[in-house]
């Protein structure tokens, strides 16, 4: 996959297939400490212990239509080639927690990519599921919590394609702002001149 946001889309879809109704997505970037962490936490039915050990083996899958499953294997390979690793564990309240770490400045690290599209796609295709998306760049934080949005507005509001489309634009603008805030000269000095993608 060309972008980390596509990996995120893929892993979140796993959680939805596992019957989750609320999924947390955290993207945490610290350029000063040179790491990028992606955490995806769902409240689905979880992964059986015997499968958990050999999860990144592409020939291990819970599906019955085919004998291969590539999603986690690909993410694991992406993390490992950037001096990071993939960890899959049982979540605190059941469900699954997938953590992928990357060395931020590694030359093989794919760009984060279009997270706004990933979120819009998830909202569009799964109106019944709640998403909590947190994106942190050097301490600057962006949060999108659909539970909050649904509480404040009518519940059906997030099923309107026009609203989702505009929401996607809103996410894109906010993330851009987040990046430029973190790119102020004083911040850049602290980050050894590295800029975000």
């Amino acid at each position, binding site marked *: *996959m060309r972008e980390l946001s*596509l990996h995120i*889309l*893929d892993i979140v*879809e796993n959680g939805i*297939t596992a019957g989750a109704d609320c999924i947390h997505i955290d993207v945490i970037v610290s350029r000063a400490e040179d790491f990028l962490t992606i955490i995806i936490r769902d409240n689905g039915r979880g992964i059986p212990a015997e499968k958990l050990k050999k999860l990144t083996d592409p020939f291990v899958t819970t599906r019955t*239509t*085919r004998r291969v*499953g*590539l*999603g986690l294997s*690909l993410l694991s390979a992406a993390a490992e080639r950037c001096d990071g690793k993939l960890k899959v564990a049982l979540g605190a309240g059941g469900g699954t927690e997938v953590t992928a770490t990357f060395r931020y400045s590694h030359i093989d690290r794919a760009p984060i990519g*279009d997270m706004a*599209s*990933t979120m*819009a*796609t*998830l909202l*569009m*295709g*799964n109106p019944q599921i709640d998403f909590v998306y947190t994106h942190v760049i050097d301490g*600057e*934080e*962006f*949060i*999108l919590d659909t539970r*909050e*949005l649904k509480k*404040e*507005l*009518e519940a*059906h*509001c997030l*099923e*309107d*394609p*026009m*609203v*989702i*489309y*505009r*929401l*996607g634009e*809103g*996410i894109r603008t*906010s*993330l851009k*702002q*987040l990046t430029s*805030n973190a790119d102020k000269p004083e911040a850049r000095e602290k980050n050894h001149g590295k800029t975000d993608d």
Partner: protein
Amino acid sequence: MAKLTIDDLKRIKEETAKSTSVRNGVANIKISVHMGTCGIAAGAREVMNALMEEMAVADRQDIRVVTSGCMGMCSSEPNVTVESTEAEPIVYQKMDANKMRQVFRRHVLLGEIQSDFALGRM
């Protein structure tokens, strides 16, 4: 802290100036974009983006868009299935943003099956 506020969303909603409660109506047409690992890697998200834009423009309450998993034909991804109450479901293969726009405008809105892009009837 950057945060997409409730006010932002309220503004979006006012600007689109549309009653969202009418969405309770029955969906006559269902469009599924297949989003397995294979579909995503092949470009299903761009297809979904194009579909969302078309949906926003068309403003039709009887069309529902869903995502689904891989159907086992990974070599023909991105796949899109158009189901309607009146006709048989059609699976489209090797979609991209432009093909999606064409399928939406011709098949979904006008009922003309785009057999050039079709994988088959289900």
